[in-house]
């Protein structure tokens, strides 16, 4: 086995370089020259134009620490600066870790995200819904004062955003859930969604930034042209971070695509054979 391992290293480096140059930036713009589609009342249409196909081709954003806009509005990923890799918390000075979240993040870095809840087929929570690489759609129903988002991936999830002006439930009426409780409003051409009520069973991203049930996310969705969804999320979690921080990326429109079925839970061999740090199976009797 060692022979082909050795032979393959050079090829891997070349392949990695090709990947990096092609993927360091968001995917090439598609239909970016076409104007923002609008509903009859002038509201931006964040979904399909009648008679056409199309889905949002959600990118695989692995590290939110690379997606924090700087003074120029661009993120480290958009500036094409090399990523911090798995450098742990010390490689991400812009993420305002608390000591415990720093320690957990370093642990997740050291074990290559072995215990990522998405690997268990649990849903993404918070902004990771827009960072898990399966397509999604946004369906506006202004007559019903709601917006529904449907996601092919992670676990075939959907979320409802109440647009009727209601407030979040208070106290015990707010039941912690994977996707939280979402209320929305339009700020000009931007859909602003306020989300609270997350449980603690998810990570913010694949790299393993943790959060608590104090997590409060403010999302901003805009469609500057037909081919682009601009996504921004304020991450406000005083349980895990010393101040709020914002992440942002573009999501391209895939004009000829439709959602298909993906059911993560069917045959998850990864979880079936996952062992803990002591080599014991996570699922089998001990």
């Amino acid at each position, binding site marked *: *086995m060692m*022979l*082909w*391992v050795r*032979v*393959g*290293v*050079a*090829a*891997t480096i*070349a*392949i*990695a370089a*090709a*990947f990096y140059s*092609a*993927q*360091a930036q*968001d995917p090439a713009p598609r239909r970016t020259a076409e104007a923002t589609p609008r509903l009859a009342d002038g509201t931006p249409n964040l979904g399909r134009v009648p008679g056409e196909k199309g889905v949002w*081709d959600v*990118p*695989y*954003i*692995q*590290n939110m620490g*690379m997606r924090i806009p700087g003074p120029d509005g661009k993120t*480290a*990923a958009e500036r094409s600066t090399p*990523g911090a890799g798995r450098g742990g918390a010390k490689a991400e000075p812009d993420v305002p870790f608390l000591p415990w979240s720093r320690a957990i993040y370093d642990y997740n870095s050291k*074990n*290559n*995200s*072995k215990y*990522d809840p*998405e*690997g268990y*087929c649990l849903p993404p929570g918070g902004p990771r819904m827009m960072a*898990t*690489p*399966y397509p999604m759609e946004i369906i506006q129903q202004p007559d019903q004062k709601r917006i529904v988002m449907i996601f*092919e*991936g992670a676990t075939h999830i959907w979320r409802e955003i109440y647009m009727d002006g209601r407030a979040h439930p208070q106290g015990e009426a707010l039941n912690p859930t994977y996707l939280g409780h979402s209320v929305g409003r339009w700020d000009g051409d931007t859909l602003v969604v306020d989300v609270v009520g997350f449980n603690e069973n998810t990570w913010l991203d*694949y790299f393993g930034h943790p959060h608590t049930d104090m997590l409060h996310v403010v999302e901003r969705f805009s469609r500057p042209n037909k081919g682009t969804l601009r996504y921004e999320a304020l991450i406000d979690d005083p349980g895990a971070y010393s101040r709020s921080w914002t992440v942002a990326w573009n999501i391209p429109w895939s004009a000829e695509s439709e959602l*298909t*079925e*993906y*059911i*993560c*839970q*069917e*045959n*998850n*061999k*990864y*979880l079936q054979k996952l062992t803990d740090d002591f080599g014991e199976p996570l699922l089998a009797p001990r």
Partner: protein
Amino acid sequence: MRTTFLAAAVGAGLLLAAVPVVAHHSFSAEFDADKPFKLSGVVTKVEWQNPHTYFYLDITDEHTKKVTNWAFEMGSPNGLMRNGWTRNTLKVGDVVTVEGSLARDGKPYGNARVVVLNSTGKRLFAASSQTANP
């Protein structure tokens, strides 16, 4: 039907950038991108299932002639269909060549990036989770 070793896979890397990515578990917790492989063998079983399709090859070592049954992980059925697959693309008895990354645990197991059907030369991407944005 023999084990082969190849270093010149650079062109494949360039092509892969355009392929839709799917992801489920941590790629790097299970596989080592620094251990690429190219192996040929005979299909013995296909599990066309979520979240990953698996197929199994009998691979004969060119030196020892010993036959080992290898397992290979690909993407989900819907991810594979977006890359031109159907559930009948691989059939038991087919001879194929696989490129990808080896498992970290040293077992006969790998993450498949590309599968070539030796009978037609048709080259299919395996909806691997290896590629990603930072």
